[in-house]
Each structure stands twice: as structure tokens, then as C-alpha cells.
């Protein structure tokens, strides 16, 4: 059956790529054809991922947590043990689903925009989506990286071409900074590969078996984990390696920001959960203390910085950096609960961050300003937009009912078991995010109509949210609510996969780790 199911993974990965490449030579004036082709490319992965999440994937009784496995040798198998290997387990399934959903939402949003050279815009977005689907479906750590880069490159180009103010510097900074992170993590992955000379493969499943059998309390393992931690950390904007993120997102066109902040950034976290921590648990526990401090930096320091922002898009960008801190803390527990919470939060944050980026662009279209102090009273003209924005904000600050809540809550609970004192500063984040989130809502939508908005709306009558913005927003909100209202359906799949990687007794953690 694996072959049958895995063919759908191929479909999800390569349909966007092929449609994207088809769009490249399209005539710019054939807008409708462009849009229809692109629509196919966006819809197929989404349908496949939803089907996988609901229809096919059930926690397997046989103990094999990976499903739909397949492998194709593209020439490097004999030399390096690299093959195009696809497969899904409970950890990658939520990410795969996330990529599908956010891909569809950002795609629909992009289709509805009036970007110049729409065919190129959509083509890059589709290539990005293909990379995302591939990253999370790969069980080969080389292709895991490969597809990530495939998705990363279009981001720079999109920021550079269609971005907003400061796009040239932002794109350049992001390109160089993220390449640094990617290269470091690549070295980390190579180091992993080199530590298992007996099996000589990049196959994650084989590596897991090997490492779990042999352990790895060596200096090399320690350094490997550090490489992966900081390489991935840069990609995930771990404090203080975050400075590319707010500036990059502020300049990015909304669809690219949605996909990058929503999905692509989860690559590093996913790598830590799926690869680094299960393979190198002992080395991991050596680095926990550092990770906790940096993650607290993400929450508290970045949280306060977010409060100081007066530009809506910068605020959204910083807030997305801030929430990474929770996920890192979840990873720092090295326990099933913490990792599960981290995955849930990754899924949820992917959706809510995408929604926030999308809606802040929608706000900009109506007010022509990102300055929070200049706005006000938009809710009167655009009540529905206000509703969506409030829902997105509430999701972002972890209101129950949205998936974010379960992620954060699980992480706090899991963290308390090991580092109760860390929970105290970490949980202040729920207050901090409420402060800036609600202030943004209040400044944009509530109160009397501000002078600058009045002036602007004289010439440009303000309309409420349009269909092209409403549909993606609803897609994202429904997904957030589906997990937020009943997280068990996702949690069970997660647990079955995580138990396999993290069920070992906690004795591996040295007793001398003190954080306070």
C-alpha cells in the first residue's frame, strides 16, 4: 500500500513545482490561464495533505510510525546514501498539513492580488510550496535540507521584486543571514551522517535506529548538536539571531511572508524535533541550558521589543519571532509532552502568523499606512475585517478554542515538570502578547476615525474585506479552530510518533542541569 499512498506525496510535492515551471514562460497578459494553472498547483497539495491527515493516517498498531514510505535513487545512493525518500509520521503529518493549508491560503490570496508579472509571482510561490511539501515529507535528511533551500530561494527573490520599503537591503540581509544558518545546519547534518559510518546513509529512519542502538555521548555528537541547534536557530530566528526576521517580513510581499513565517520557518524547529533531539539526546541535554536562556530571550526581550513597535508589520514580524521562544522551550523539555506541545504550537502559529501577515496587508490596503499611531476607527467601515483581525489576534495570543492555546499550555505544563522556574518568565509572554496584540486591535479598529484615515478615505473609499481575502482567512481560521476545539485527533498521531523517539526514561538528562 505504501507505493499507492506515496504516489500522492509525489503529487503534492511535484504538482506545484511543475505548474510553477509551466507558469514561467506564460504570457503576462494571459491572466486567467495563469490563475487557473496556479490554482491547480495550490489546491492539489492541500487536498492531498488533508486527505492524509484525516483519511489515511491513523496511528498504526504495528508500531511502525512512518507511513507511505518510498525511495528513489537519483544518483547519490551508492556514493553517499542519499535518495529521494518520502514518508510521513505523526510529527511530520501536522507540518505537511500546515504546508498544504497555508500554501492554499497564500496562493488564493496571491491569485487575487494584482501583482505585476503575476505569472512569475505565482510561479515562485508554487516553487516555494513544492519545497515546503517536500521538506516535511522527506525522510532523507539531505532532501529535507534540499527542499528547504528550494523553498528559501524564491523568498528572497519575491522580497526583492515585490517587497515594500527597504526590500533590497532586507532581501540581501535575509539571504546572507539565512544562508549562514542553512550552511551551518548542513554541516550539522553532514556531521550526523559522518557519525554513522557503518550504515552510510542519509535515511532518517535508519539513522534513528543506528543512533538509538549506539547512543552517542561523544564530543563530536555534542558539536553536532550545537551546529544543528545554532544553524536551525538562525533559520528560526532564535534570539539573538533574529534580526533578519522583522525587517525581512516587514519588506516581504504578504504571500511570501505568509509562507515563510508560517511554514518555512518551522523547518528548523521541525529539524530539532525530528532529527537533532531524537538522534542526539545526550548531546541535546548538554545544550538545554543554553537553549532555555535564548528561548527566554525570545519571549521576554523580543516580547518587550514587540511592545515598542509602532509599525504594524514590524510588530507582527517581531511577534512571530517572540512565539518561537515557546516552541524552543517545548523542545528543551526533550519529553513527549513538550515536543508534542511544540508541534501543536508550530502548527497553530503557522496558521495564525500567516493570517496576521495577510490581514495586516489587508489593513494597509485600506488605510495606506502601517503606523499604529495614525490609525483608528477602521472597524466602522470594515467590521468584517475587524472581526477577522480580532480572531487572528486572539489566536496569536493563545486564546482557548484556537490551536495556539493547546500548544502553549502543553508546553508550560511539560516545562514545569523539569524547570518550574523557567515557566514563570515564559508565561509572562501570555501577558506581553496580549498587551501588544490588543493595542494593535484597539489602535486600528476601535475608537474614533483618525484624521489621516479620514483624509485618505476621502479619495479612496474604504471597502470591507473582499472575497479574495475572506476565503484564505476562513481557511486558516477553520484549521485553527479544528485543532483548537478538538486537539485530540492531531495529538494522538503526534503521541504515537513521539513516544517512539522520546519514550526513553528521563535518566539520560544529567542531574546537574540547573536553571533558575
Amino acid at each position, binding site marked *: 500500500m505504501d507505493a499507492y499512498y506515496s504516489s500522492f506525496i509525489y503529487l503534492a510535492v511535484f504538482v506545484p513545482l511543475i505548474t510553477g515551471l509551466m507558469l514561467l514562460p506564460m504570457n503576462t497578459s494571459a491572466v486567467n490561464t495563469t490563475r487557473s494553472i496556479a490554482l491547480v498547483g495550490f489546491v492539489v497539495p492541500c487536498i492531498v495533505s488533508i486527505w492524509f491527515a484525516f483519511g489515511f493516517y491513523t496511528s498504526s498498531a504495528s508500531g511502525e510510525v512512518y507511513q507511505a514510505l518510498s525511495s528513489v535513487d537519483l544518483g547519490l545512493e551508492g556514493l553517499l546514501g542519499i535518495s529521494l525518500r518520502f514518508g510521513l509520521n505523526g510529527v511530520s503529518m501536522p507540518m505537511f498539513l500546515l504546508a498544504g493549508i497555508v500554501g492554499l491560503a497564500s496562493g488564493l490570496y496571491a491569485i487575487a492580488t494584482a501583482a505585476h508579472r503575476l505569472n512569475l509571482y505565482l510561479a515562485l510561490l508554487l516553487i516555494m510550496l513544492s519545497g515546503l511539501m517536500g521538506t516535511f515529507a522527506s525522510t532523507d535528511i539531505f532532501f529535507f535540507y534540499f527542499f528547504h533551500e528550494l523553498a528559501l530561494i524564491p523568498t528572497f527573490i519575491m522580497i526583492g521584486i515585490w517587497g515594500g520599503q527597504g526590500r533590497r537591503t532586507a532581501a540581501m*540581509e535575509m539571504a*546572507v543571514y539565512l544562508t549562514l544558518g542553512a550552511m551551518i545546519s548542513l554541516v550539522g547534518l553532514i556531521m550526523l551522517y559522518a557519525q554513522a559510518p557503518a550504515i552510510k546513509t542519509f535515511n532518517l529512519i535508519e539513522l534513528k535506529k543506528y543512533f538509538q542502538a549506539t547512543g552517542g555521548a561523544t564530543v563530536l555528537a555534542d558539536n553536532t548538536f550545537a551546529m544543528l541547534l545554532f544553524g536551525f536557530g538562525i533559520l528560526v530566528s532564535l534570539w*539573538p539571531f533574529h*534580526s*533578519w526576521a522583522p*525587517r525581512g517580513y516587514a519588506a516581504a510581499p504578504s504571500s511570501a511572508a505568509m509562507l515563510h513565517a508560517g511554514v518555512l520557518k518551522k523547518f528548523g524547529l521541525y529539524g530539532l524535533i525530528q532529527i537533532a533531539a531524537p538522534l542526539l539526546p545526550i548531546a541535546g541535554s548538554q545544550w538545554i541550558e543554553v537553549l532555555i536562556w535564548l528561548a527566554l530571550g525570545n519571549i521576554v*526581550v523580543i516580547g*518587550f*521589543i514587540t*511592545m*515598542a*513597535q509602532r509599525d504594524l508589520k514590524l510588530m507582527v514580524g517581531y511577534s512571530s519571532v517572540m512565539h518561537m521562544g515557546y516552541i524552543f522551550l517545548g523542545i528543551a523539555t526533550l*519529553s*513527549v*509532552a513538550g*515536543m*508534542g*506541545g511544540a508541534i501543536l504550537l508550530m502548527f497553530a502559529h503557522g496558521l495564525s502568523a500567516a493570517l496576521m501577515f495577510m490581514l495586516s496587508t489587508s489593513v494597509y490596503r485600506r488605510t495606506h499606512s502601517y503606523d499604529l499611531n495614525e490609525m483608528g476607527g477602521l*472597524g*466602522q467601515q470594515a*467590521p*468584517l475585517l*475587524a472581526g477577522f483581525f*480580532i480572531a487572528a489576534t*486572539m489566536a496569536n495570543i493563545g*486564546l*482557548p*478554542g484556537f490551536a495556539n*492555546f*493547546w500548544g502553549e*499550555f*502543553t508546553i*508550560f*505544563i*511539560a*516545562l*514545569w*515538570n523539569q524547570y*518550574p522556574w523557567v*515557566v514563570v518568565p515564559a*508565561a*509572562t509572554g*501570555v*501577558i506581553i502578547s*496580549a*498587551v501588544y496584540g*490588543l493595542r494593535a486591535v*484597539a489602535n486600528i479598529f*476601535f*475608537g*474614533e*476615525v483618525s484624521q489621516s484615515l479620514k483624509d485618505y478615505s476621502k479619495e479612496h473609499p474604504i471597502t470591507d474585506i473582499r472575497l479574495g481575502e475572506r476565503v484564505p482567512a476562513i481557511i486558516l481560521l477553520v484549521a485553527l479552530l479544528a485543532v483548537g476545539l*478538538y*486537539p*485530540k485527533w492531531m*495529538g494522538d498521531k*503526534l*503521541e504515537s510518533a*513521539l*513516544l517512539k523517539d522520546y519514550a526513553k526514561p528521563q535518566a539520560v538528562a544529567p542531574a546537574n542541569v540547573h536553571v533558575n
Partner: protein
Amino acid sequence: MDWTKVFLSILLLPLVAALVNMLFLRRNGTTAALVSITAAFFSMVLAMIALFKCTERYSVSFPWLSLGDFQASMGIYYNPMTATMLFVVTFVGFLIHVFSVGYMSDDPAKGRFFTGLSIFMFSMLGIVLADNLIMMFVFWELVGFSSYMLIAHYWNTEEARSACKKAFIMNRIGDFGMLLGIAWTYWHYKTVNLQALEVFSSQPGFVIHGGIALLLICGFIGKSAQFPLHTWLPDAMAGPTPVSALIHAATMVAAGIYFLCRIFCILDAQTLEVIVWLGSGMVVYAGICAFAQTDIKKILAYSTLSQLGYMAAAVGLGFPGLALFHTTTHAFFKALLFLGSGSVIHACHHEQDIFKMGGLFKKMPLTTALFAIGTIALCGVMFTSGYFSKDAIIEVAYFKNTPVFILLILGAFLTAGYMGRLFYVAFLGSPKSQNSEHAHESGFFMLVSLVVLAGMSLIGGYTQGWAPFARQLVSGELDTVHHQIVSLQAEGLFSVLGILPWAIGFAIALLFYGIGAKKDALQNHLPSVYSFVNQKLWFDEIYGFYVRNVQQRFADILNFCDVVLVGGLLVRGTAGLVGVVGMMARSLHVGNIHIYVYWFLAGLIIYWSFAMGYF
């Protein structure tokens, strides 16, 4: 009867109504109102059926999320507390729904309003039914959200804009502590199930952890607007009056008390002490603050704070049943008062200043009469519901803690004072503004709710008439109190104390303010006292100072450091440094062959000396 289905229906009916309203009836306010009311009605009916028929404790639980050590579930734990609160919430909620039809009749955003009400009902019922702390926290946050949305109903006003934010954030601060408390509970007691906690705590050798209790009560402090997080409640009056009645008087703020009662078994002595002092302090503090208010709703808001203080004191003194008893009666008469004030405000074209009202007893006699009933019930006049519940608490304080007892008596006196002030100024005398002159009696929907609530305010205190299951809650504690008082031979004292505070309060208010005063007497005669009272101990100022000058400055400084040091110096500085090195390297290409030959010479020498081992 399958009680699971009944309770689930009670819980989910409002949610369904909210979803229907949100998705389909945003522009059709009247239908939305109908949907919400229907849902609330059936919830109420089912709650009543449960109240009378379900006479056993009942619990059921569904696993909701399981990740390794972390197990969360959703469930229902039905006991006398639940029965009482279910009835109160659905009953008052339904009446307020009905009232809103009249009150919000000319509001364009009716659909949004009723959606909000239904979401609130759902969330509040979730708190009431919750069988574990995690579920309670979930709904705890949700009521905060619905309160936020409903306060922000008039979202184009500046007051609503800041009030909703303030309410949510203050609640979040409380929830922060509660969250830590739940996490601690989870690992310390190994369960967050309320029933399990009750069972454990009754076993010998069980030690209550004080830290957990202190953290958990943070939730109560935020939700019930106790010191020091009380400042949001008066501001929350920016919302529509039915919302103030339902959420900020009758039910949501009482959820804090309900929560304390639910977790009473894991509250230790020191924590109870803290609660007592928080409560009794609030009784007096809020009572005093109410004197400086001219907005009718804000007076009632401070009164709510003060009454919440009584309830908290009751819990702190070890009598959670009495606290819930007072919660129940308070729900009736405070809802009555708020709705009455709503009726007045509606009649006076949204005029809320009592010094611009006056003479309403002529224009709207029925409302005035009902408001008067609410007032005497609040002040604990004999044989009204407030008398029974409040006096029981004061009696407990008498034999348990004398200073608290004095504070509570003082509170009762203050209550009568400010309520007297309100009533004399707003309802009696002659109209003092255009708006009050043109006031008229409210419509059917509004009055019918008022009448029902007035009835309950009068008779709600007779526990003999309660459903037997719910009465278990209070009867035992009332008996204890009675026996104590009898054994201390203080019945005589209390027959006096049952009358004295409110009588003196009403009298002084009458003397001081007079009938239908146009100006605030306190402000005129004792301006310094007035302004002191009006400052409310500068809480708003202190918080405002903190937010503007400490928190925001700190944030700005961090932002500056981030932009300049991390983003600028470290990241772009490194890039710039590499760039400078690059320019230097570039300038090495001078274009002169001789120089290049020197490079070769140097290279030759270096390679050779390296090979010879000179390096």
C-alpha cells in the same frame, strides 16, 4: 434520563446559537436575537430540570489531548454548587437576553451583540460545569474574551477602546498566576480533576501546598476584580448595560468566587487569610469609591466590587456555601439594579449621570419601584434576599474574625449610603435635564425581566424554597452559623445589626444629599474628601504611570538596543567590516606588473620556507 446529554445540551445550545448568528445572521439582528433567546431559554429549562431531577453528584469526562505525561480532558462535574450556579447563570442570562431585545432594539449591530451574549453563555456554563482545572481555564479565558468583545460593543467610542483592552489584560495577569498554579497542581497533586482533588484532600496525610493555592487565587483576583486588579471593572461599564448586568455583575465576576469554592479543598489557611483580607478590604474600599461616582453604572460597578468582597470574605472565613449563597442573591438583585439602570439609561437617551436625571419616579414609576426593590435587597433590608445572605456572612465574621466583622459592618453601612444617594438623586426630586424630562417607561421586554428579577430578589433568600439538592450547599453552613450565634448568645446583637447599618446609611444619605440634589453635596462641602475619594487611591494613575513610563520606556530601550546593537552593530556591523576588508583586498590589485612579481617572490619564499619547516 441521560444527564450527559442534558448537560452537554445546556452547554452547547448557546454555542450553536452563536455560530448560527455569526455565520448567517450578522445583518439580521432580530432573528439573531430570537436564536440566542431560544438557546438561552432551552438551556434554562434544562438547567431547571437538572436542578430538580438530578439529585446525585454526577461526573463524566472525555479525553481531549494526550501527549505523554500531559493528559487533558473535558468533563462535567455536577454537585450542589454546579446545580445552583447553572440555575443562576441560565436564569439570569435568559432574562437579560429578553431585556436586551428591548434595550438594543435600535442598535445596528444587534447580530454581533447577541452572538457575543451567546458566546458568553457558552463560556460561562463551561466554567460552571468544568470538572477539571484545565477545562476551567479554557472557559475562563473564553469568558474573558467574550467580556472583551461585549465591552467593545460600542467600538467607536474612546472609553470602549481602552476599557476592553484593560479588562482583557488585567484578566490575563490574573490568568498568568492561575496558569502557573494549574501547572504546579498538575505535577504536585498529579491531577487537575476537581473531584479527584476533593477525594485526595479528604484522605489522611494530605498536605495542602500553599504556593499552589496562592497562584491559583490569582485567577480569582483577576476575574472577580479584586485588589490589585480591580481597576478594570468600573471601566468595563463602557459596554452595553445588559452586558454589565450579566457579565460584570451577576455571573462572570462571580465566577471567581465559584472557582474558589470549587477548589476550596486545596486552599490552605494562609491563603484563606489572604482572601479574607482582600475581600473585606474591597468591601470598604469600593464602598467609599462609589461615593465619588456620578455615573449610575459606575456606582453599581463599585457596589459589585464591594459585594464581591463579601463573597470573598465568606470563602476566606471558610464558608464557601455562604459565598455562593450571596453570589446567587447578588446575581438577582444586582442584575435587577443594572437592568433597572439600563431601563433608565434607555429612557433618558443614554444619559448616565445621576445628577442629570431626577424625578424619574413620575415618568417611570414601575422601574422606580423595581429599582427600589433592588436597592433594599442590596442593602440587606430585612426579609429581602440580600438580608439572608449578607447577614450570614457578617455573622460568620463575628465569631471568626473581629476586624473583618467591623469592616463588613462598615461596608453594609456604606452600601446603604451610596445606594441611598443614587436613589434619591436619580429617581426622586425633579428632572434636571432635557433627557430625563423626556424619559418614558420602558417597553414590555425590559419590564418583564425586571419584574421577574425583582421577585427573585425578594424571595431568593428563602433557602427553604430551594431545590433540595442545591440547598445542601447552604443549609449545613447556615445551621453551623446559627448554632454558633446561638451559642455566643448574639442573636439580639444581630437583630439590631440587621437593621442599623442600612437604616443609618439611608438616613445619612438622605440628610446629606437630600432629595433630587442637583450637585454632589460631598463635592460642594468637602471638596478635599471628594477628590481624595475620586482618586480611588491612585490605582489608575499608578498603573498608567507604570505602563507609560516604565514598561513602555523599557520596551523602547530594548527596541533601541535591538535595532542598534543586535541588528546594527552585530549583524550589519559584521557585514560592513567584511565589506571594508573586501575593499582593502580589492585595492591590492594595483595593476603594476612589478608589484605582482613581488607577490610571486613573496609567495615563493613563503611556500619554500613552509616546505622547509620554517613556519
